[in-house]
């Protein structure tokens, strides 16, 4: 399987196979024949069916144009691809990297078929005041984001010329610092209500970008920074004397323990994507707890034994969730 290039011992191999077979038995009941590959005929009941993405009309038949799972919604028939690049939808939260600072805009690489555009006018400036963007702002763009910065933003929509526009109109969006960026296949991240997670017990922020880029970083308290800014403005003398360690400008070091937690979470997600399992907060946290309870070192999480354990845990989790239903 893709991604797994580890040497398993014989018992580990057997256990992994057993866990995967258990997964297979759980999912095979529902859609064993809904899986199609390119140019497979899709059975359609009537002529009036609507042909959606991933389908193609060939003579009188409807055939699939990608490998995937056939989905039917009323009259609509479409194929959801199993492996594909990220396909943006409006409102998605994404993590991307700045590749170019252009006039009035930044270009971002977001794992889509084109680069995304973040306009200067569609983001809140760090001072937080709503106002027209002046030429001075444009000249100072590099003070906000420069090339190779990692940014979190939201998909705003497609422009007439087909380019993808982003927006960052809230304090929670913006530059991501002091953390780790992880790239996993985008189809392993499901769209959810919440993509920003603050893991209180570890002091870590976790952002699941819909485009498969995942940010794990030290927790930054957005609201407190705002309050502090206001305090700073109200009495400038005070700032020099007392509040230096807390101010956002000060590059305080991330404690070692927190860095280890960041790597631990990152490794948990890496194991998940190597096994091809869907990544979500609960399962990742479960995996982190598992590794902690076993007293595993951070690097040991990437070894064969832990892959097997995670597969077994996933099989267990899915079987209990189906039983509950």
């Amino acid at each position, binding site marked *: 399987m893709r991604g797994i290039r580890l040497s398993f011992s014989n018992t580990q191999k057997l256990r992994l196979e057993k866990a995967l077979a258990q997964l297979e038995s759980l999912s095979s009941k529902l859609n064993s024949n809904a899986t199609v590959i*390119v140019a497979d005929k899709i059975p359609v009941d009537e002529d009036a069916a609507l042909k959606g993405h991933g389908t193609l009309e060939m003579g009188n038949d409807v055939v699939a144009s*990608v490998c995937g799972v056939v989905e039917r919604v009323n009259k609509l028939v479409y194929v959801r691809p199993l*492996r594909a690049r990220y396909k943006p939808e409006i409102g998605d939260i994404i993590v991307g990297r700045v590749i170019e600072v252009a006039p009035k805009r930044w270009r971002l*690489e977001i794992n889509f078929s*084109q680069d995304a555009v973040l306009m200067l006018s569609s983001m809140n400036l760090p001072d937080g005041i709503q106002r027209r963007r002046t030429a001075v702002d444009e000249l100072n763009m590099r003070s906000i984001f420069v090339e190779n910065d990692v940014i979190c933003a939201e998909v705003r929509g497609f422009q007439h010329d087909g380019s993808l526009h982003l927006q960052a109109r809230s304090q929670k969006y913006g530059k991501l610092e002091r953390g780790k960026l992880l790239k996993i296949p985008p189809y392993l991240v499901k769209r959810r209500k919440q993509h920003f997670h603050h893991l209180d017990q570890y002091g870590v922020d976790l952002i699941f970008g819909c485009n498969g880029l995942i940010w794990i970083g030290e927790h930054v308290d957005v609201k407190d920074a705002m309050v502090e800014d206001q305090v700073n403005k109200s009495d400038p003398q005070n700032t020099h004397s007392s509040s230096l360690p807390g101010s956002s400008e000060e590059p305080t070091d991330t404690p070692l323990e927190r860095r280890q937690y960041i790597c631990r979470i990152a490794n948990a997600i890496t194991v998940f994507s190597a096994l091809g399992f869907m990544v979500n907060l609960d399962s990742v946290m479960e995996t982190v707890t598992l590794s902690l309870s076993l007293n595993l070192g951070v690097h040991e999480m990437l070894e064969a034994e832990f892959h097997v354990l995670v597969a077994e845990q996933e099989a267990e989790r899915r079987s209990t969730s189906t039983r509950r239903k």
Partner: protein
Amino acid sequence: MEYVNPEGLRLDGRRPMEMRQLRAEIGVVSRADGSASFEMGNTKVIAAVYGPREVQNRSQQMNDQALVRCEYSMANFSTGDRRRKTKGDRRSTEISLVIRQTMEACILTHLMPRSQIDIYVQVLQADGGTRSACINAATLALADAGIPMRDLVTSCSAGYLNSTPLLDLNYLEDSAGGADVTVGILPKLDKVTLLQMDAKLPMDIFENVMQLAVEGCKAVESHIREILLENAQTLVIRQGYGS
């Protein structure tokens, strides 16, 4: 030289209408969007697909369809005598072009405007029929990358030696100087997307040889479909639909 002995066996022990063993694997390059390796006997190629992604050269960008690029290369260790090959020699440029045109015919490029798809194929072991093996590997890699296609292109070669049509020539038979017909087809549509022949053949014999190659393509297709379906089912199980 005798390429088919009186018992009707070829140099490597095959019957005239027998293919070499096929092996395929999906997902061999971890960073690529789609990848596959494909073996026909001792010929082994690897293909990686990147994209659809942003067009690198702005002037090549097309507003109504995707740009398809292909690069064919042979590893230095792929042939019997080890030699350094220059990247842009005539042979590899020609094969790159052939593969690109064949794949372009089946990719639904109009669905991915303003983007580019890169196909990299490399020959790891050359034993005749690299052209066909590359096309088959590229098809698998494209399907793995989730790029919409009309059909799975498959390709196979056939030749004519000792007044016998031979399927799937190996290096020795290829270099014998007889005709070598490479055919690429869209199996479900029953259309030919690639047809190449060096040397000459009478019309009636050519038809036989080509028919043989088409049969070979269909055999390759059924093998490829098996591999792809198996891969798709594992992915479905792993991602846990329906549970």
